[in-house]
């Protein structure tokens, strides 16, 4: 366990070195947030309520989403693992007396922890400064929002881990990454809150794991009844279930991949 804590620490220090990238990300999040919010405000000017969402709800979701974008990689940017599988450096990862998935998870949590402080918080503050946002009143919901963030990070990591692992079977995961780059933002509720989709489509998208990264955390902040099970607890359970399922799948496929490398060479 100590080793994963150290990996977490290393990753944290590593990302704290990327100052320019962090500033650029923060700028992008803020600008996209403004554009996205203005578009939605125009939409809601015509209709004050859509599927239980008000303009304030929609703009809040925009800034929750932009704040999440640092720690939660919705776009599915490839983990370092993807390139390591392609180049064969993954041999070194298999040589460590550590579980590869736990190793890369610890790294991603380090990255996320840094991003929460230096991307999420400032981005959300920009939103608060520019727009009226709907904030949770009870401390319990703030705690729930924090937990939702952690679970969203877990889901995002596992998805990207699985995209990267695909490289073991198809040789190069870049195609998967490109596809994920479209699917992620669309299905998570980043591009548009899922409430604005036709009911049938929204119903399907809400059941998929991507919604655990933006839509569900946003509705937990907003305290919406559209959450799975109609409650904040239901939303958290939905996220936790996907995180657990994907982590289990990741562990299973890691064992398969290691066996495959052992048999076929990496």
């Amino acid at each position, binding site marked *: 366990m100590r080793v994963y804590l150290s990996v977490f620490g290393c990753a944290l220090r590593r990302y704290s070195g990327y100052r320019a990238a962090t500033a650029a990300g923060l700028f992008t999040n803020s600008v996209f947030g403004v554009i996205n919010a203005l578009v939605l405000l125009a939409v809601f000017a015509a209709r004050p309520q859509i599927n239980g969402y008000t303009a304030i709800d929609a703009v809040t979701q925009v800034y929750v989403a932009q704040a999440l974008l640092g720690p939660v990689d919705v776009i599915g940017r490839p983990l370092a693992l993807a390139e390591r599988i392609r180049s064969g450096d993954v041999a070194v990862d298999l040589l460590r007396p550590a579980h590869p998935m736990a190793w890369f998870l610890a790294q991603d949590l380090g990255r996320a922890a840094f991003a929460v402080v230096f991307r999420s918080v400032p981005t959300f503050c920009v939103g608060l400064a520019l727009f009226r946002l709907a904030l949770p009143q009870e401390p319990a919901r703030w705690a729930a929002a924090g937990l939702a963030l952690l679970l969203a990070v877990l889901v995002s990591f596992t998805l990207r881990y699985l995209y990267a692992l695909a490289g073991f079977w198809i040789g190069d995961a870049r195609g998967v990454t490109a596809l994920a780059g479209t699917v992620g933002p669309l299905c998570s509720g980043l591009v548009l809150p899922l409430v604005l989709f036709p009911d049938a489509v929204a119903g399907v998208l809400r059941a998929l794991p991507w919604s655990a990264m933006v839509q569900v955390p946003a509705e937990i902040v907003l305290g919406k009844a559209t959450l799975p099970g109609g409650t904040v607890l239901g939303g958290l359970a939905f996220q936790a279930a996907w995180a657990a399922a994907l982590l289990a799948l990741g562990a299973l496929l890691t064992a398969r991949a290691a066996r495959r490398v052992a048999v*076929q*060479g990496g």
Partner: protein
Amino acid sequence: MEAVIEAEGLGKDYTVAEGPLPRRRRRRVSAVRDVSFRVAPGEVVGYLGPNGAGKSTTLKMLIGILAPSAGRVRVAGLEPVRARTRLARRIGVVFGQRTTLWWDLPLRDSLALTRHLYRVPRADHARRLAELTEVLELGPFLATPVRQLSLGQRMRGDLAAALLHAPEVLVLDEPTIGLDVVSKTAIREFLLRLNAERGTTILLTTHDLGDVQRLCRRVMVIDGGRLAFDGGLAGLHAVAPSPRTLVVDLAAPAAPIAVAGARTVRVEGPRQWLELNGNPARVIAQVAADHEVADITLREPDIEEVVHRIYAGR
């Protein structure tokens, strides 16, 4: 004595897929065939062979990241693939072309991490780190991000990372590739010292005859996946006497030089290559007496040549 590395009838076939997806064909490539050897504790063994001979494939089977297609292998009494993690705690591995260090962090951070990775007691780790820092002269760049290190410095860092858990066996795949002479020498001297002081068993692949001459009492030569030679360095020279080459730069182009003790094998303008079979000093003196010479260099045979001669002689 009980062997620390034992390979018997070791073989590896790779399956390679060829062609575009719908009509992809599978072909089996035999990378290592029927390789058997034993390495006793404390030995330093050079594992040589031309590119694609099967050196890395053999090493990967020894360290447990590749399952043999045939034969059996034991390292430190363990079956590598089955006991990969346990074995990892007892051996050190360095791939010259891959690094285990954190690219963006100071070297010190990667070295600190190995303490938890290998569960080394704090005091032992501190003591070994101090020792390694001294003998590998890591001090000046412990605080430097790994991406800013020279190849030689990075290699020394990787060696330290592989040795902080005091493994009984060290496996090195081309540890001196791409290094300058000074770095090569530093690494060779370090490995000699490690072997002499700790009795660490070392198995290394290399393309550099200098590595072999300085480090290895025993060499194994692999070519086309088969073991072609296993014995002392002297035996290697006896099996494949490889002449040294004299490269002579004349002041002006001339007819091939005729001199006792050497045979001119190549002429390119004013430069001529002479294969030595006699006393080099006498040949050099004679060439200098007969011709106006701008420069003369004596070239050692490289490993590819030695290996090819072993095959030519069979």
